[in-house]
């Protein structure tokens, strides 16, 4: 797991069950200095999702269009 994915997971878990806004995630992962590409966050999230699924973590990351992401225990 890359550093960015780890940071992303930490940011989501700290607010597990609640929505975490795009802007918040970007600043947590990339800091303020980096120039961030539009879909960098999206790619990080999809990689993280795959990893979590592969290891059977039993959590789900919801995409909230226009808002951000939310991590919670899988409903199934």
């Amino acid at each position, binding site marked *: 797991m890359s550093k960015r994915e780890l940071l992303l997971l930490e940011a989501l878990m700290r607010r597990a*069950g*609640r*929505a*975490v*806004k795009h802007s918040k995630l970007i600043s947590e992962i990339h800091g303020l200095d980096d120039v961030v590409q539009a879909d960098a966050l999206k790619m990080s999230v999809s990689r993280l999702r795959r990893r979590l699924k592969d290891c059977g973590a039993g959590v789900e990351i*919801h995409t*909230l*269009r*226009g*808002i*951000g992401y*939310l991590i*919670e225990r899988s409903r199934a």
Partner: protein
Amino acid sequence: MKLLRSLSSRLVVYWVVFSMLAFFMIPATALLPLATLGIDDVGYVRLEGHTVKRARNILMRTLRQRSDGGVFVEMTDELRAYKARNPDFRYAAFDPTTGAAFEGSSKELIDYFSAELPRLEILGANFHILTDSNPKSRGSIRMVRTPFGRFGTIVYGAQFHWDDLLFWLYHYPTTANAIAYLPLCATISLVALVVVRKNLKPMRSSAAKVAEIDLNSLDQRVSTEGLPSEVVPFVDAVNTAFSRVDDGVARQRRFIANSAHELRTPIAILRTRVDKLDDAPLKHEIKRDAQRIQTILEQLLVLAQVEERGAAAPMPELDLAETVLAETADYTPLALNAGRRIAFEAPSVPVAASGYKWAIESVVANLIENAARAEPAGGVVLVRVAPDATVAAVDHGEGVAPAHREMIFEPFWRKSETTPGAGLGLAIAKELIERLAGRIWVEETPGGGATFKISLNKS
């Protein structure tokens, strides 16, 4: 009767009625006592004037024309009766060109005047015969017009009787008198109009001021400056009434705020206790109900808050997109729990608007909650902020029938008895948005559903 409700027209009517009364009453009330005491000779003559007029009127009706053209005075029943009441009554009628008296005239009068009559041009005169033993006897010589010519008439020595005034009353409303009266009435009407209009003008600005007072400006009072003193008590009473209403409203607001505040604690306790319950489905429902009650309480508190702060303070500026996004993000987990999703759309640049953050948050939360409840399971509620400082909450549920689009903002309005909630949410939202000088309304979502929109002032 609308005309008579105008003050100026009432003035004119009163004036006409009272001036006529006065006109008839003055001789009877003011002149008569003087006349009977013999103090005011003029007054006496005025009273007697009616007697003289009546006497001459009787005399005129006795004049007859014979077939040869000659005129004579006939002793009619009326004349006989009048003579019986007035033993000293003398009368004469004569040809003004020759001075020749007509047959039937009183001999004494003819003897008295006959020498002078041919040399007089009769213009009308009152007189008293100095040799008369009764010092109060008055007479009058005057021309009259009859169907068979103009003649001179003399009446003398008739006594004043009260019914002479009745005779006068009967003959008073002539066309000539009416014509003489008309310009006077017109002038008075004009004066009444000008006076009333001019002096009641400050009333109009006062009325405009009163009309502006609403629940939020109850502290305003109407100035009595420049108002006619007659309407000042009324304005004072209005001001006092406003003071009382103001006090009452303030008390009521405090009561609502206090009640809502007091209810917070028991609701919080209730929610904690529900958490401890084991029965999962029931627990979930009770929890949701408690949440609803809490929402209503919060809304009531918000409303009380905005009422207390008043509209006077300038509203702060904020980023509408940021405010709405935060509120939307907060609500997302609840929606996810209920199997709905929420999407958010906003311009990439901040949307500046003026308003209280907590008020906007409250309204937006209410709209999202409503939309999430209306949204079918698995659907997506869209919250959209537009650059013109409008916010839309779009659902794809049953929508709001056009007939209900105004009503739903009324307090306690519910679609049916089974609809959850107290029906206060939208009413409070509307109240809040209007306090922020904004607007709230509902449209139809293309393809079905309701789109609630609020627009705020761009700053």
